[in-house]
């Protein structure tokens, strides 16, 4: 009787599907991460990065890489339900304020202290400090990254004559774009302005401090107004499909874009694919210096982690100088321990590393940091700057008015969270745009 067959099949399937699959190895831990998401990077993580750890510890690591949304949802759900399956997490330091606010991570100060005390590694103090959120050490620094400009060599001949690309200013960049445009009729500067792109970081961490010396306080200052005027003009020589670009290595390799600003890990594939075709340049300098952002990726332990001890072992392995160098060579994220800093990479990575060093050691370099203390509202910071950009540069609205409206929103956000200003602003609390 067909109906019985279907019913039996269904029953068997349900039983099979709800049972755990396969036999479990000795110890298995689950590592959930938002980084190393592209499928080739995931495979690298499993096969190259984690294999030595699995061998030496006889543990199996399940590396699961997700987009930020589901990643945070999962941790929040596990925290609320009181039961967890994720043993260890790895994500951007900008995500941790939210996780701490939701009570989803535990304090790793003891682990960090122990690791830092070891003779073979010293963590960069600024990076450790960035993890001190809500009265606890929310993460152990794992890797860091920054943002650069990558340029195709064929574009270099349009660079303004007599100027040094390694000491480029924003005016140089604009001139460059205009030169390309008059020579070829095309707009070949590109920015990752799609919803999955990181253009927002450019606005608040690179442009704003370079023009105004501030991320928040001088939001609607006269310097900001001239910055936005400049950005309008820059957008006029940028590729109009930029709002579809999430990762700039692709448009660069396709040849749609000749000069691109993006996260180092998102540019690396271009350098790897054609190392002889591209150069890495430090981000431009404005009237107030050459500002750049450091992005920190940290390892944390969820509140309901089933196996925190195993997680601590994995953290130890990942922060070993040897592993740090391996990570740099693998995916282009830079080390967080001093001992790993001296390594000279080869190939495409070398080109990029030169750019990073040039940016960090420039005489007019200024570090900006991601905003802190905004807790559950951290996610609103970058969209606010992006919105400002859309209103001013794409919809062409009145600059002063938009800045006033947006500044009011910024002020409200900082007031309700009572958060301090991010560097290079002085740490006034709550932060108020002037």
């Amino acid at each position: 009787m067909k109906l019985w067959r279907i019913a039996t099949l269904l029953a068997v399937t349900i039983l099979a599907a709800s049972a755990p699959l396969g036999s479990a190895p000795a110890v298995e831990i689950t590592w959930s991460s938002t980084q190393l998401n592209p499928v080739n990077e995931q495979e690298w993580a499993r096969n190259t990065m984690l294999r030595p750890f699995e061998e030496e510890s006889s543990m199996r690591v399940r590396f699961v890489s997700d987009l930020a949304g589901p990643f945070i949802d999962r941790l929040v759900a596990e925290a609320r339900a009181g039961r967890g399956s994720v043993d260890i997490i790895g994500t951007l330091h900008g995500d941790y304020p939210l996780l701490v606010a939701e009570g989803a991570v535990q304090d790793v100060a003891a682990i960090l202290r122990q690791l830092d005390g070891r003779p073979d590694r010293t963590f960069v103090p600024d990076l450790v400090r960035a993890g001190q959120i809500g009265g606890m050490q929310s993460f152990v620094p794992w890797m860091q990254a920054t943002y650069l400009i990558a340029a195709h060599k064929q574009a270099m001949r349009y660079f303004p004559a007599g100027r040094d690309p390694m000491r480029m200013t924003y005016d140089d960049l604009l001139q460059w774009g205009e030169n390309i445009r008059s020579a070829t009729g095309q707009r070949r500067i590109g920015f990752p302005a799609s919803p999955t792109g990181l253009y927002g970081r450019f606005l608040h961490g690179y442009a704003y401090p370079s023009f105004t010396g501030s991320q928040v306080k001088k939001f609607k200052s006269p310097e900001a107004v001239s910055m936005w005027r400049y950005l309008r003009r820059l957008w006029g020589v940028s590729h109009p499909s930029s709002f579809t670009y999430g990762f700039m290595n692709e448009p660069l390799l396709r040849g749609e874009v000749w000069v691109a600003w993006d996260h180092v890990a998102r540019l690396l594939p271009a350098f790897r694919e054609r190392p002889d075709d591209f150069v890495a340049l430090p981000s431009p300098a404005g009237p107030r210096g050459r500002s750049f952002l450091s992005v920190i990726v940290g390892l944390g332990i969820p509140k309901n982690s089933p196996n925190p001890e195993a997680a601590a072992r994995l953290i130890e392995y990942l922060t070993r100088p040897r592993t740090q160098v391996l990570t740099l060579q693998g995916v282009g994220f830079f080390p967080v321990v001093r001992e790993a800093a001296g390594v000279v990479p080869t190939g495409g990575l070398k080109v990029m590393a030169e750019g990073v060093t040039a940016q960090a050691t420039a005489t007019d370099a200024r570090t900006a940091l991601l905003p802190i203390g905004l807790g559950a509202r951290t996610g609103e910071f970058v969209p606010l700057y992006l919105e400002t950009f859309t209103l001013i540069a794409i919809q062409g609205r009145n600059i002063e008015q938009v800045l006033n409206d947006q500044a009011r929103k910024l002020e409200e956000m900082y007031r309700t969270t009572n958060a301090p200003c991010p560097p290079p602003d002085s740490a006034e609390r709550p932060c108020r745009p002037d």
Partner: protein
Amino acid sequence: MTTPGRKALLTVLVVLISAWVLFPIILIALASFTTRTQLYAWPRSLVPSPFSAETMRFFVQAQDVLQSLLNSLLVAAMTIVLAVLIGAPAGYALSRFRFGGKEVFRLGILGTKMFPATILAVPLAVSFINWNLYDTLLGVALVHTTLALPFAVVITTSVFVGVPFELEEAAMTLGCSRAQAFRKVAMPIALPGLAAAAIFTFVLSWNEVFAATILTLRNRTLPALVMNAVGLAGAPIDYRFAGGFFMIIPALIIIFVIRRYLLTLWGVTVR
């Protein structure tokens, strides 16, 4: 019955439409077998030379891919069975009977489909953790069934409306019980509609990525594993094409299998 003129028009339309549908598919099929360097070249030829199965091989061998493929098929199968088993009776009820609350049921069932499911991620996950359904394929299948049920009900309703009740009446006067009349008479005629509901349900479950991502950690379905890592994450372009194509193939096979049930001639399937 068709004049040569009409036949020509028919042929032209069929060819045009087929080409329009197939062209992008063929493109990504070709692109999946192209090397990365060629994909970035400009101008480039549409046909890859040399043919390279490298990226496709990567996908087949990548960790957990085959397992998650199996997971997706299992989930989809469970979803189809559940959705049709639960939804078809409801469709029958809505088509045959007049009863209090009928319109409310109809709108209510449809109403669940109008709420974007992405927002339900956290409440669902919390419930599932508490019910021990977290990270199980059954859990995902249950959510997929929930997403597919409204459509299954609506499609089967409209199908049963089109099946004349007199036929069941006739069977009943000949000695069948109501259930038998339904099974022997109404269902075979309704088969195209049930097949349509089944295809729908399969496709919905196969491509569903949000619920599958949040509700699974170790036992992932294929979209949860691949789509996020390929679609939005900026994997190199050859991986995007190969991953996308790799995901389509099983769906194509299933649609191919079910398609003949969409066409019947009074219970006789057309080959």
